[in-house]
């Protein structure tokens, strides 16, 4: 009985408010409220009560610890001299953005606490759009920035530094769930579980971010389609980037370095379709790319240098194009074991290629087989790794190259390049 009435009341009120707001903004310019610990308005809470939509709140330097701050109007909050908002490990979110068009800039947000039950966050955006989170420092906030069904947001130039020790008690630097059109750029993310985590995120861009020392992945895509990441650096993570169950992901100009360990990869691909991997650098990883099911993926103009394995395919991978890449000084260039293979791997530069080019057209005259017998042996008896680069192994690799018996016969580069690809 009560419900419809209430609902009416609500909507009436909203309509009234809307009217008032339009009226207000039409006649008065948005005002500015200053928060200063030595001034008239001493806390951010007070300021939030005083403001009307569209206002700007200037927060001056100092330490503000006021519990959870809920921003429920379209406001611009700007920190001057980097004020600190401290959660004092009280196990609650520090800032919740519960309105469209909120801008948050120039704060240090710290100490959300650790919880095994709740996902605590430094900044949480809940079902609201068009937010801007710029130039903030988030320190030790389990999850740094947590987006739930939030669209059209910009997350720019933030530093998100965690203190993750183990996966169960830590969160992700930037966590996005069911979002669209995000623009994430220039952020530095360190020591979390995943640096950046995307689940059901569509049409988003990641540019110029640095993600390092994270326990699991530097960047993690789950069920996210049509995204692009460019010019990012992934360093010393459990694995640089994991792209799982996703379609149409573009990966350009990224650097993946020093991801070491028995389950460490520069890039991990699992069940992905129609991706483009171009002009990336994979340097000094245990595995440059581990591919567990990829279809119609283009690997083009990448540099693989000093990796344990440059690319390792496990499981069925079809219609992939591996062209114009540089494979330089990797312990193993390519591992591809399935007997049925319709991937093209033509026109790459391999530093271990020993053929010749008599007609001087820049393309080696004899095809190159990148899959070595030894890689086949190592995947079956891992201990045999201690024999890497011994003369005996070179001899059996050579005899396998002359007449393949164990490695798939049709995996070869028909047009190996004599010189490095320059792009």
């Amino acid at each position, binding site marked *: 009985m009560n419900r419809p009435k209430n609902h009416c009341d609500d909507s009436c009120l909203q309509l009234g408010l809307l009217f008032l707001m339009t009226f207000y903004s039409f006649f008065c310019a948005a005002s500015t409220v200053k928060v200063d610990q030595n001034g008239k308005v001493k806390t951010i809470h007070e300021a939030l009560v005083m403001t009307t939509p569209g206002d700007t709140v200037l927060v001056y330097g100092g330490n503000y610890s006021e519990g959870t701050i809920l921003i429920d109007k379209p406001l611009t909050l700007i920190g001057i001299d980097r004020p600190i908002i401290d959660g004092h490990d009280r196990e609650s979110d520090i800032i919740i953005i519960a309105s469209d068009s909120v801008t948050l800039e120039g704060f240090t947000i710290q100490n959300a606490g650790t919880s095994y039950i709740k996902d605590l966050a430094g900044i949480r955006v809940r079902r609201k759009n068009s937010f801007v989170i710029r130039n903030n420092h988030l320190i030790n906030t389990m999850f740094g920035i947590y987006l739930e069904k939030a669209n059209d947001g910009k997350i720019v130039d933030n530093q998100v530094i965690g203190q993750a020790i183990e996966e169960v008690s830590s969160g992700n630097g930037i966590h996005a769930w069911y979002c669209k059109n995000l623009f994430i750029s220039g952020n530095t993310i360190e020591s979390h579980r995943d640096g950046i985590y995307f689940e059901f995120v569509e049409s988003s861009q990641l540019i110029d971010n640095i993600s390092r020392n994270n326990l699991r992945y530097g960047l993690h895509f789950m069920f996210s389609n049509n995204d692009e990441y460019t010019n990012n650096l992934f360093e010393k993570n459990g694995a640089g980037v994991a792209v799982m169950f996703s379609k149409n992901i573009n990966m350009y100009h990224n650097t993946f370095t020093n991801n*070491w*360990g*028995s*389950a*460490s990869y520069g890039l991990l691909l699992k069940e992905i379709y129609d991706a483009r991997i171009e002009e990336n650098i994979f340097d*000094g*990883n*245990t*595995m440059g790319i581990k591919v567990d099911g990829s279809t119609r993926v283009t690997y083009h103009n990448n540099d693989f240098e*000093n*990796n*344990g*394995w440059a690319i390792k395919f496990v499981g069925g991978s079809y219609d992939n194009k591996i062209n114009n890449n540089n494979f330089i*000084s990797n*312990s*193993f260039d390519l591992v591809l074991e399935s007997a049925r293979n319709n991937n093209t791997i033509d026109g790459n530069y391999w*530093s271990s290629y020993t053929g010749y080019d008599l007609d001087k057209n820049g393309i080696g005259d004899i095809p190159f087989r990148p899959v070595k017998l030894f890689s086949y*042996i190592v995947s*079956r*008896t*891992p*201990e*045999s*790794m*201690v*024999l*890497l*680069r*011994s*003369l*005996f*192994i*070179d*001899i059996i690799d050579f005899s396998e190259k002359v007449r393949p018996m164990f490695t798939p016969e049709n995996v070869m580069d028909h047009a190996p390049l004599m010189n490095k690809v320059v792009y």
Partner: protein
Amino acid sequence: MLKILKYSFFDLIRSKWSYVYFFFYLVISSSLLYLSGDISKVIISLMNIILILVPLIASIFGVMYYYNSREFTELLLAQPIKRTNIFLGQYIGLAVSLSSSLLFGLGIPFLVFGIFRSSEIWNFIILIVTGIFLTFIFSAISFLVALKNENRLKGFGIVIFLWMFMAIIYDGLFLLSLIVFKEYPLETISLILSMLNPIDLSRILILLKLDISALMGYTGAVFRKFFGTDTGLLLSTLILIMWTVLPVWAIVRVSGRKNF
């Protein structure tokens, strides 16, 4: 002993084979450096050459030198000089002259190419140090074999076989046993087995510097501990020293008892 050492050393240094050996390394390393221009790649190529060639040359040179200087040795034995001094002096003279061919043959081109300004300096030092260790180990083994065998042909045969066994056959048997017994936990065994062969051990020492990213791909805890820390480097060096000391000690013992 020092006098005999000096005599052997200068005798060998003047021989044309030392020059050939020296120029061989000079030409190989400078041409590799000139052709590829990438120091780290050259070090990897040189590693393969050093691991195979240094033991072979040291072995052959060792027996050759012992058999050729036999008359002189007999002359020395007639003098009031301790036997230990004679043989140790000859051995060290031989090993030092071979090592210096290696050191200068590789060192000069790298110096010209600017190794001191490169980040690869440690890899290069490890390469040289393992090369010198291998020279000392294999010339000691060949000296020992020559001491024990009066028959030259037999001596040569044994030394060549020993080289082949350690450079190739050992790894083959090793791999075979790993494959046959793959159902069992093998990581400790495989580490120990690779320690028992100085060529394998030197290879691992260099791998620790160059291929660490691949070695870290294996899950076993013992492996990771060995390869991931300085323990591996320290242990390998210690065992290389043992490999040098043991044959030398055997030379001293055998030469003391031998009838001439």
